[in-house]
């Protein structure tokens, strides 16, 4: 998101997960003696509004960013994107399709309820409840059922072996909400209320911060959970303030109204850097920006054409010219931090000469005309402009069309496009999430495969990799897939971007992880 506040922002990093690591290994029931030094009140200017306080409510980054602080997940990802314990102290694979999770004992929700296996089951059942129709239900796609083994042990039965389960359990969509609010929400639904209506106003979790208030479109305020089971947070309060205009976020920073300004456009980096008292925090991400073809349409049904176009696009120019160097060129669909990324795969190099040859081979020596769709995202539009010019050099005449987000989603899902620009964020940091929805033929259209690629080989590799529980074997499969996808070229993998945030000097230990989630728990203000 460049910060203009339109909902296209969602498009950048539409998925997330995560968790702050929380140094949770060493448990500690010190009940965070309320004397813990005051860490101050942190204000974060965020580009777009929080949508839901319910972990099942929506699937967007701003909501996750808030939820991550209120709720916790069974597992977590550490900075190396390795799975580490969260609310579950440990877990074991009973058999290929059965997993037991042992919960941390004595964890209390903000409302005093206790975390038990029953509560976890309640949460997971709700996630897949059709009535709830959660946009995050896909995380439990492979789950057959959830069982309570004992007070602190939950069993998850899978439909088929499913390796990404642990990563999915680190996603905030599977975070655990208090049983009370779930019950109350159901009770209200009985009386004709809407799904999540209650939870949205009364979110209760186990996390290091307690919900204070939410003014939709305005701000969300959280305060420190003094009774946190782990080491309590340092900040007294955190405010997520919606400031949709990028320049205004920077102004907030300059006037000290906010401490952190998220989503600084590449063009404004120098402005922030040159202002005293603040700096830019840039951080690699698990996201990919790509230009996808509609492989069912001529001439994109010919891999040669797709390769030609891929080779005609100068990624370096785009990264330098448009992103001011923030990010790295993409070779395949996966970003380096993602599990399964293979650095040995070599991509299609920029080679316009070869591209022309390929086009000629495909029978398009005179080029052709086509359109490229983009939504209203500054950098995407600029990328489209750059690509338009780059492709004109091999004789392809591209017309750019901007679409509004709703129409964009629908019409690309329907396959009405020739080419379009979008991004993908592998928020579980697992290759399955980064490839399955994008390339599996069962995922045509709205689930993610908007290039409409149907390749049996890819399908079977992805299916197999899902069930394969041996990490090394999985990696092998994904390497194979990556190599093939470079060849098949259903999309141009442009680059893996960096998160750019403006941060006030006084803010210490603030971070953002590869999924785009703020690391707040250890932050404090000097």
């Amino acid at each position, binding site marked *: 998101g460049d910060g203009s*506040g*339109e*909902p296209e922002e*969602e*498009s950048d990093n*539409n*998925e997330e997960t995560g968790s702050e690591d929380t140094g949770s290994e060493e448990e500690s029931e010190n009940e965070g003696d309320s004397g813990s030094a005051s860490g101050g009140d942190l204000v974060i*200017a965020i580009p777009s*509004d929080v*949508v*839901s306080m*319910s972990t099942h*409510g*929506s*699937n967007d980054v701003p909501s996750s960013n808030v939820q991550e602080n209120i709720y916790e997940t069974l597992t977590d990802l550490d900075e190396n994107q390795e799975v580490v314990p969260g609310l579950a102290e440990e877990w074991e694979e009973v058999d290929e399709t059965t997993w037991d999770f042992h919960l941390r004992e004595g964890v209390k929700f903000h409302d005093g309820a206790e975390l038990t296996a029953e509560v976890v089951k309640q949460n997971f059942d709700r996630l897949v409840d*059709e*009535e*709830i*129709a*959660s*946009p995050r*239900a*896909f995380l439990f796609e492979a789950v057959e059922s959830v069982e309570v083994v004992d007070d602190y042990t939950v069993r998850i039965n899978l439909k088929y072996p499913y390796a990404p389960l642990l990563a999915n359990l680190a996603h905030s969509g599977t975070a655990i909400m208090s049983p009370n609010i779930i019950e109350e929400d159901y009770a209200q639904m009985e009386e004709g*209320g*809407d*799904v*999540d*209506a209650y939870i*949205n*106003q009364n979110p209760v979790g186990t996390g290091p911060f307690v919900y204070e208030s939410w*003014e*939709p*479109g*305005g701000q969300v305020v959280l305060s420190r959970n003094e009774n946190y089971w782990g080491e309590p947070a340092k900040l007294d309060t955190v405010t997520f*303030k*919606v*400031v*949709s*205009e990028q*320049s*205004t976020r920077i*102004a*907030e920073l*300059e*006037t000290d*109204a906010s401490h952190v300004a998220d989503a600084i456009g590449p063009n404004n980096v120098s402005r922030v850097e040159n202002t005293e008292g603040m700096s830019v925090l840039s951080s690699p991400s698990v996201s990919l920006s790509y230009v996808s073809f509609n492989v069912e349409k001529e001439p994109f049904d010919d891999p040669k054409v797709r390769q030609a176009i891929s080779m005609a696009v100068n990624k370096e120019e785009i990264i330098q010219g448009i992103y001011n160097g923030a990010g790295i060129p993409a070779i395949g669909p996966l970003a380096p931090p993602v599990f399964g990324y293979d650095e040995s795969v070599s991509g299609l190099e920029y080679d316009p000469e070869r591209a022309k040859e390929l086009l000629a081979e495909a029978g398009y020596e005179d080029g052709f005309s086509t359109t490229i769709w983009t939504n209203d995202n500054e950098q995407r539009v600029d990328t489209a402009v750059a690509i338009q010019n780059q492709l004109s050099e091999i004789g392809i005449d591209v017309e750019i069309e901007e679409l*509004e*987000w*709703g*129409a964009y*989603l*629908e*019409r690309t*899902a329907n396959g009405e496009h020739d080419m379009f620009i979008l991004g993908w964020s592998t928020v579980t940091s697992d290759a399955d999430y980064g490839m399955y*929805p994008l390339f599996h033929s069962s*995922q045509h*259209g*709205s*689930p*993610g495969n908007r290039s409409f690629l149907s390749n049996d080989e890819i399908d079977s590799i992805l299916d197999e990799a899902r069930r394969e529980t041996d990490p090394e074997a999985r990696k092998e499969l994904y390497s194979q897939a990556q190599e093939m996808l470079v060849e098949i070229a259903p999309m141009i993998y442009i680059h893996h971007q960096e998160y750019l945030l403006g941060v006030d000097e006084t803010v210490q230990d603030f971070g953002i992880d590869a999924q785009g989630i703020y690391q707040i728990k250890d932050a404090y203000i000097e």
Partner: protein
Amino acid sequence: MFQFIVRRLLQLIPVLLGVTILVFSLMHLSPGNPAHIIAGESAPKDTVEQIEERLGLNDPILVQYGNFLKDVVTLDFGNSWRTSLPVSEELWPKFWVTFELSVYSTIFSIFLGLIAGIISAVRQYSVADVSIMLVALFGLSMPNFWLGLMLMQWFSINLGWLPATGWGSAEQIVLPVITLGTMGAAVIARMTRSSMLDVVTQDYIRTARAKGLSERLVIYKHALKNALIPVVTVVGLQFGSLLAGAVLTESVFAINGMGKLIVDRILARDFPTVQAAVLVIAVIFVLVNLLVDISYKFLNKRIDLD
């Protein structure tokens, strides 16, 4: 007059009905499936279907309209499809913010616009007239966000006089009101000028002068009242459109108002919120235009409204 007001208020009913039909059908005509937007970029088909089911999007269109109408009649607009919060709870605070913003901005525009327009008219083609016109055109050709950002840069960042964002305190009001009111002021100024020029050559102005009135009285009392009809119309229109169209100013100053809400929610296909907001605006428009019509009558008794 009483009858007239009652009749006009009764006309609200067909207007609102018209608005509901139009909003409803346009929302449905717009491309983009709300369920898709809620589900996000990667949404398994059954999730999308479940969401559609939950929102009632699979019902026959008339049933949907009926449900919606029922919500309107009971003044309970249901819950937002985006935030699941009750629409009225979300809408009212934002409405009041934007309402205040619009009121202040309109006052600002009237004040500035009238004075500038009058000066312009009285000194037609003078330096003052030309400069007012240039400033007005400058204000007009500058998009709101530009003006807002520039004001913010000077007054908040460079000078540190005023806060950059927010709404509520006296200091916070200044910049957004100037930003939002400038265009209106320009329009009012130009309208006043031209309307005054039509009036100042009338015989009754000569009569007023012959009475020995000061030029001020002649202009402000005799000429202005006659010239005010198009100006009042413009003011009414301006006020109404500010209410719905403050989105850019609200974004720039991070004001959590209705203008931004409407645009955001249209784009998010949050039908209940959009419908409720548009209805509210329609009511305001009808009321404002009623006031404008009544003020016509005050300005010129000869106008026959019935």
